[in-house]
C-alpha cells in the first residue's frame, strides 16, 4: 500500500491481528500438508517440511480410501438432500410469509421451535425410527433425516427473505392475471435467487461435512458422506499419519474448491445471516 499517510497505529494493530489470525487458521492445514508429504510409516512432528516430499501419498490415499466411490456417494447424498430441501423451504417460506393470515402465525413458531432442538438430542430416536423404516445402512438413512433436520433453519431463512419482498409486487402480479402458483414461480422465485443461492451453498456444506448421522446410521463407509467415511478411514489407517493427513486433505478439497468458486455468494450468505439473525 502506497498511501502510508492513512496508516494509523490503529490500522497497523488491526492488520497485525488479521495476519496473526490467518496464521493461526492456516497453521493446522500447513501442518497437515507437511505431515501428508512425509515418508510412509514415519511420525512427523509439527511443522517440518520433509526433505523429500512424497506427493505420491495423495495418490495412495485416493486409492485406499476409494475416494472416487466416496465422491460419488457424497454427491448422491447432496443431490438427494439439497434440491428437495431448498424447494420445500422456498415454498414453505413463501407460504408462511405471504399466504398465512394472523390466525395461523403459530405455524411459524413451530419451525422456530425446531431451531432450538439440538441435533445430537434426536440422534438416538432417529436411529430407531430409521431402523423401523428399514432404511438403516442405506443413503436414505442420511438423506431423509437431513431434509427434515434442515427444515427449521431453511424455512426460517426463506421466510425472512419473502417478508422483505414488497407486497405490492404480489398484488401487481395478481392484477396482471397471475395465479398464486404462477406468481410464485415467475415473480417470487426469480427474486429470491440470492436467498436460494446462499441457502443452497450452506446446505451443501452442511451435508458434505455431515459426520455424526452417517457414522451412526450407516455401517458401510462407501454409503456415507466423505466426512463420515473419514471416521472409518481413521479407524483403518490410524497408525499411518502421512496417509491419514493426505486422505483428510483430499476429503476437504471439494469444500475448499466450492468455497473458492462461490466465495462472493458465500460471504453474502453469511452476511445475510448476520443481519437477519
Amino acid at each position, binding site marked *: 500500500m502506497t498511501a502510508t499517510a492513512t496508516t494509523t497505529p490503529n490500522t497497523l494493530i488491526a492488520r497485525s491481528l488479521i495476519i496473526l489470525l490467518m496464521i493461526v487458521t492456516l497453521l493446522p492445514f500447513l501442518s497437515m500438508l507437511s505431515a501428508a508429504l512425509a515418508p510412509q510409516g514415519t511420525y512427523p512432528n509439527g511443522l517440518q517440511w520433509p526433505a523429500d516430499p512424497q506427493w505420491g501419498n495423495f495418490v495412495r490415499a485416493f486409492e485406499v480410501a476409494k475416494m472416487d466411490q466416496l465422491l460419488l456417494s457424497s454427491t448422491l447424498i447432496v443431490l438427494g438432500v439439497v434440491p428437495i430441501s431448498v424447494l420445500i423451504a422456498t415454498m414453505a417460506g413463501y407460504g408462511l410469509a405471504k399466504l398465512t393470515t394472523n390466525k395461523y402465525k403459530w405455524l411459524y413458531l413451530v419451525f422456530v421451535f425446531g431451531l432450538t432442538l439440538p441435533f445430537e438430542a434426536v440422534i438416538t430416536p432417529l436411529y430407531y425410527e430409521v431402523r423401523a423404516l428399514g432404511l438403516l445402512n442405506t443413503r436414505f438413512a442420511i438423506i431423509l433425516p437431513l431434509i427434515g433436520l434442515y427444515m427449521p433453519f431453511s424455512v426460517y431463512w426463506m421466510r425472512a427473505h419473502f417478508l422483505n419482498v414488497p407486497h405490492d409486487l404480489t398484488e401487481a*402480479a*395478481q392484477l396482471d392475471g397471475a395465479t398464486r402458483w*404462477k406468481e410464485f414461480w415467475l415473480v417470487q422465485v426469480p427474486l429470491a435467487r440470492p436467498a436460494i443461492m446462499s441457502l443452497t451453498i450452506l446446505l451443501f456444506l452442511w451435508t458434505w461435512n455431515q459426520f455424526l448421522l452417517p457414522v451412526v446410521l450407516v455401517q458401510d463407509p462407501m454409503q456415507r458422506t466423505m466426512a463420515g467415511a473419514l471416521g472409518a478411514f481413521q479407524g483403518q489407517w490410524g497408525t499411518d499419519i502421512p496417509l491419514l493427513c493426505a486422505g483428510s486433505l483430499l476429503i476437504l478439497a471439494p469444500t475448499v474448491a466450492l468455497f473458492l468458486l462461490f466465495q462472493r455468494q458465500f460471504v453474502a450468505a453469511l452476511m445475510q445471516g448476520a443481519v437477519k439473525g
Partner: protein
Amino acid sequence: MAGLTLRSVHKAYGDVPVIKGVDLDIEHGQFVVFVGPSGCGKSTLLRMIAGLEDITDGEIRIGDRVVNEVEPRDRGVAMVFQSYALYPHMSVYDNVGFGLKLAGTRKEIRDAKIRAAAKVLQMEHLLDRKPGQLSGGQRQRVAIGRAIVREPDVFLFDEPLSNLDAALRGDMRMELARLHSDLDATMIYVTHDQVEAMTLADKIVVLDGGVVQQVGSPLELYNKPANLFVAGFIGSPKMNLISVTSQAGGTVVSPALAAPLPLPALQHDLSAEAKLTLGIRPHDLALAPDGPLKGQVRLIERLGNETIVRVMLPGNTEITAALPGQDRIETGETITLGFKAESAHLFCEDGARF
C-alpha cells in the same frame, strides 16, 4: 370499457369500520379522483374496486357485472401503484408484457401491443432496460404502460405521482390528462394532493373518515363546498373560516369583524343568534379601506405573481389573503380587507353548508 357503480359499500377490519357506506356512480370514460387526508379510506376504496381488499358489505359493479366475489385478474381492471411495483428481475419489455404473457396472448400480438404502448408513453428506447436502471419518472411510465397493454375497463391509480419531484409531477400530470383523452378510458385516481385532483378530474370524490363528503366537478367543489371539511380541503391556500353569530336583519357579528356584516344569504333566515362559520377564500379577499376585516400583517410570502399575507384579526383569528401582484405591504402594518358578499360561504353549526 365500462362504468362503475358502488352501492352501500362498507369495509371493516375486525370491529373497526374504515369505509362506512359509499354510494357512487362513475360513467364510462370519466376521470374520477378520490381525494382526502391520510387515513380517510381512499386507497382502501380503490383496493376494494381492484379486488385486493374484501368488501364487508355492499356491492361493486363494473359495467353490469357484480364483482364482489370476482378475482382481481378477472375484473378487467389495471392498477398503477404508488411504488410502481415493477418486477425488478424483468426488462421493461417483459414488465409491460407480463400480463399478456399470462393471458396466453400470441407473441406477435404481444410484441405489437408492447411496442404500441411504449410509443404512446415515449419509452421505446427503454424496453431493454431493467427497472433498477430507470429514473422515477421512467418507472412510472413503465407502470402505466403495463396497465395500458391490458386494455382494461377501468384504470386505477394509487397516488402514482407522489414519489416524483415537483417538476416531474407537473409533467406527468399533463401526460396522464393526455392519456385519458387518447384512451377514452374510465380512470379512478387516488391522491391527497388537491392540485392533482382539481387539474385531472371530471369528478372529485372527497372522503373523510370513510364517508363521502361530497361528489362533484372540481369547480362545484370549489365554488359550493357541501360542508366545512370540503371547504377547508379544496383550494390552496385553505379557505379562511371565521366563527360568527347571526343577527336579526340578515347580518352576522364576530369579534373578528370590524362591524356587523350584512349577508344576502341570511335574508330568508329568521333565527337570530345562530352560531355559524363564515368562509372566505384567500383569493376572494382584496385590499379595501372600508372593508370588514382589519388586522395586523404577521407574515408575507411573495410569490411574484401574487402575495400571500397572513393577517391577525381581533379576537385572535388569523386569516390568509392572496393578493394579486407584488403589493408593497410590510410585516407589522395594519391593513383592511374586503370581499364581495356573494363570494362568502356560510356553514351551520354542524358543519353543513347554510
